[in-house]
């Protein structure tokens, strides 16, 4: 739940059901969680799957400290990071990933994979993800490949001169 809330902070999405706590509902449409962030994070190919429990524990400790510092009373029925509202989660993630934070590299790598779940579906075959309506690739407008799984774009150019060439261009087409 804590890591879902983290991924949802990176690319926010709509609540999956009424009362969804991990996903804050800060943006319409599916976000990183619906895109499969947890599935990607839990895949050992990423190299961070073994440390996810520690990530969640550390994130909740940071959330407790953040709440104490800002006089925020956290509900106790969910982990502390989940209990933060979207603005609080965002502010804390910004702190943890800022230059100079001693654990920055860890949080950046977690953010990187959360982001990749949404904008490249790195845990799925891209063609399959598109066919299944993957929320990130679909929202970005990534087109579907051909029947052989490959992309081809027969139309690709305006096909006419659109600027003057640099006057010093050499015959090879390079700068002088």
């Amino acid at each position, binding site marked *: 739940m804590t890591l879902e809330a983290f991924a949802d902070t990176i690319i926010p999405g709509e609540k999956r059901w009424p009362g969804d706590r991990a996903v804050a509902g800060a943006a319409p449409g599916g976000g990183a969680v619906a895109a499969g962030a947890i599935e990607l994070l839990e895949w050992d190919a990423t*190299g961070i799957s073994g440390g996810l429990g520690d990530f969640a524990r550390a994130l909740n400790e940071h959330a407790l400290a953040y709440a104490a510092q800002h006089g925020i009373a956290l509900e106790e029925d969910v982990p502390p990071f989940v209990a933060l509202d979207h603005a609080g989660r965002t502010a804390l993630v910004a702190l943890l*990933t800022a230059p100079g934070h001693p654990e920055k*590299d860890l949080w950046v*790598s977690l953010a990187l994979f959360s982001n990749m779940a949404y*904008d490249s*579906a790195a845990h799925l075959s*891209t063609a399959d993800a598109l066919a299944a309506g993957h929320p990130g690739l679909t929202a970005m*407008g990534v087109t579907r490949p051909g029947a052989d799984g490959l992309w081809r774009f027969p139309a690709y150019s305006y096909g006419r001169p659109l*600027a003057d060439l640099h006057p010093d*261009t050499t015959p090879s087409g390079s700068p002088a």
Partner: protein
Amino acid sequence: MSSPERTDVLVVGSGFGGSITAYHLAAGGAKVVILERGPWLKSDDFEHDFKLGSSYTRAFDFVVGDGMSVLGGNCVGGGSVVYFAAMPRAPRFVFERRGSINRRMWPAAVSRDTLDPWYDRVAESIPITHQGWEDATYAGGLWAAACRHAGRTANPVPAAVDREKCVNCNWMMAGCRFDAKQSLLLNYLPAALAHGAEIRPLHEVQRIERTDDGGYRVHYSVVDDEDYRITAGDGAIDAKIVILAAGAGATPVILQRSEAGLGPMPHAVGRYFSGNGERLNTAVLNEDRVREVLGLDRGDGLAYAANQIGKGPTVANWDRLDGSLPEYTRYSLEQLYFPPGLGTILAQAPGANPGWFGVGKKEMLKRWQSWLIIFQMIEDDNEGVFGPPPARGNADRLSQQMLGIGRLSYKPTANTLRAWEMADADVKDILERDGLATVTPWTNDLVGAYTVHPLASCRIGDDPHTSALDDRHELRGHPGIFVTDGSAVPGALTVNPAMTIAALAERAVPGIVQAARERGVEVTYGAPAPDGSTAGRRGVTTLIPELTRR
């Protein structure tokens, strides 16, 4: 212990620096073995897929450093397999650069004039298309039109792409499925194999030591085909000549690790690293304004919305490539494509805080098809330094492929920061005119600056204090070891460097042949281009005596 295998020439890495030298030495009669740390992928292996484990993550490495992250090839063919195939020659003024230490960075023997015949040799060996406007993609055309609207020029970029085969899929970073990109897998490497060179993939060189007979022993680990974090045994090969071409992010690391077995390294090994001054901006276009202001229309109802379509960079603005301007104010601005994942995480939503994640970023991603990425190549200050090497390779690998933590530290100087600021302002001026787009630079706060063209970490020069190699690419104090990859290039080039790396590798060959002959290897210089063409060879004839002097 049984005595190791022996060869005449051991080449480390199979990118431009390794393939070109391996071809010429094998064609000249030497026994050549190439060790490549990455896999050997063929055309059919190149997938259109972002899934971890596809060719997209197998073929290159992303190494995070302190202040600079480096993307580099990790497969047979090296950078040529994953690069965008832009092949411009470096402008004349680059060779006269002095840098902030105010000494000529390049050897006196190398200028645009003396390098042009070597550029010609490369152009004869790797088919390079002098692209016209009909080759410029929508993204390139848009950049050209915006440049013209702002009173600037713009040029289609020469590229090693076969326009008949290219389908504009924009999957170049995963390797070209259609053999349109003229990677080394299609020219120098098959020619080297035909002359008896051997390529051993998944062999990661760790260190080199001297042997009693004046040669070298090269130690390697065998890397697992799927999970690069795992090795399956070690080995060694003895060679009379060693050519290091592991890339500017790895060559100095191998040398640093070899100090115990080789003796002290020149001061410049692992110093003076340049990221080729690279930085990226993302513009989000207003489609209506593209139509109204620039008069662009794809003919299918869309003005642009074509970020996904193309073949990497096709058009560049070269107005600042002017030798009369002061150093650190000269740069090119090139339209580029970067795929999602690596190409989106660092982009910042205009006016949003935070910029790189959150609600604003998600909104920006919705308009991904209307993105235009502009690539700046400024003159940086060679401020990168490598720390002590990791246990193995050039990084502590985090993921099974692609992602690792390296030892490069890069703290941009005021010169570099000012140049980026100037280039940022220029891109903004061109693309935000009349409401065409909103432009933001990629953040450097997450993984530092970011380069796809690492250079200069083991560079040529005339000054022994600031160059690791002499002007013939031989490692100072270690005769018989040559470096021919991007690490030999003295500094930022203000354009894509592949053509210059390749030309320097061609130029290094006569000196390496001579060194090999002095070590008893029966080898001669003078092979034609891989396809048998000979005009390039004739063009360099008069330059050979200077390169083989002692």
